[in-house]
């Protein structure tokens, strides 16, 4: 078990090209995946324990990856600043703010008022403001939609959105009973929901296929050949 070609095409002349490293990585992926997957369907105590252990290790490694992401941002922006790029000064500001926040968080813990102060003063208003800007941007995009892609699909899209918006909140002039009472629920709860179900079924099937390919070793997104 390991090299995909080794098992399925054992007589293939490319066997010799199988890399030992790829065999190790592929074997780890398949073994760990099978342990977790079997635990979904079969309740064997050893498998349950092993599954819990593997999932716990995954959580710890995910936390490590957050730190790795921070390190990566640091390296990139330091290089931008030292190389004198256009936004090097802003990169420096990013690094300063990041390490200050990290230091305070490691010292004071995230729930500390100062940490809350930083969050409430910087992160929260910035993200809310970005969302507010997004409203204007989406509105302008809706205006240009029929000019850039005129068609019945775009018209259906905009009309549906319009109906939902109208049914969401009553106008200053009053509420449209047919629209709010029937049309909007029908559109949202039947038409849109049916389409959404088809989409999530498709997404589920795709996820199943992708997972099986990884467990079979056909896909190796972790760098294995």
């Amino acid at each position, binding site marked *: 078990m390991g090299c995909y070609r080794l098992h399925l095409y054992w007589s293939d002349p490319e066997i010799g090209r199988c890399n030992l490293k790829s065999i190790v990585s592929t074997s780890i992926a398949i073994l760990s995946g099978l342990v977790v997957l079997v635990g979904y369907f079969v309740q064997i105590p050893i498998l349950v324990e092993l599954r819990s252990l593997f*999932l716990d290790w995954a959580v710890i490694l995910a936390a*490590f990856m957050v730190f790795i992401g921070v390190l990566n941002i640091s390296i990139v922006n330091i290089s931008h600043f030292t190389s004198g790029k256009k936004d090097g000064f802003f990169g420096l500001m990013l690094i300063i703010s990041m390490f200050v926040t990290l230091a305070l968080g490691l010292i004071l813990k995230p729930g500390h008022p100062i940490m809350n102060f930083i969050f409430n003063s910087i992160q929260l208003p910035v993200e809310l403001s970005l969302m507010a800007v997004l409203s204007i941007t989406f509105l302008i995009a809706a205006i240009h939609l029929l000019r850039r892609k005129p068609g019945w699909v775009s018209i259906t899209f905009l009309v*549906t*959105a319009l109906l939902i918006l109208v049914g969401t909140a009553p106008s200053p002039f009053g509420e449209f009973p047919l629209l709010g009472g029937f049309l909007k629920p029908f559109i949202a709860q039947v038409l*849109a929901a049916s389409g959404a179900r088809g989409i999530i079924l498709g997404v589920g099937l795709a996820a199943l296929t992708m997972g099986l390919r990884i*467990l079979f070793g056909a896909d190796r997104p972790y760098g294995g050949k």
Partner: protein
Amino acid sequence: MALNPTMEFASAVISFLFTIMILSYLVGDNPLFRLGIYVFIGVSAGYAASVAFQDILWPKLFVPLITGNSSRSLFLWIPLFMGVLLVFKLFPRVSRLGNPVMAFLVGIGAAVVIGGAVLGTIIPQTISTINLFDLSAGGSAVEKIFESVVFMIGTISTLVYFQYTARKTPQGAKRGRFVELLSLLGKIFIAITFGVVFAGVLTAALTALVDRVMFIWTFLLSLI
């Protein structure tokens, strides 16, 4: 823990400044906007890293390793070693050392996705689609049947729309007529679905805009 008024005022001032800096993008891209974005990214990354360390690494990894109280502490050397190998992914020359760890994570993720997709989406949703025609659930039968039929058609046509298998013809790859009709119908349902999603995005964004405008107005009023 509540902040003292000074701290609250300072927080308000800083929030106001950052709000203005970001909203200035509506006028056009400017250095203030960039400064606000870069600071925000730094603060977010630092905050996330501090939370990851404080909430996961320290209590779940380092403390058991240091104290050695947990029965599973012996096994914790493995994730520690794997975490160190993950750091090598930052450097291209030695990034290969992190491949086994990535393989471990990918394998577990694939298994989790398979289990969740099968048990949490495919089977329940399929059963739910079948149960649409269960008239015993209550409600008007005609209405229920009508809704069920529409729901069924919408679901199936949406799935067929993403079916790209076609036959080879002299004019090129073409799907059958029935499949083409269903896919066209599915396209309509998808457009409706995305229209509803777009409406929701607009309302969410509008809510944020309302919040910011109210905050600015309130802050300015407080200054007066």
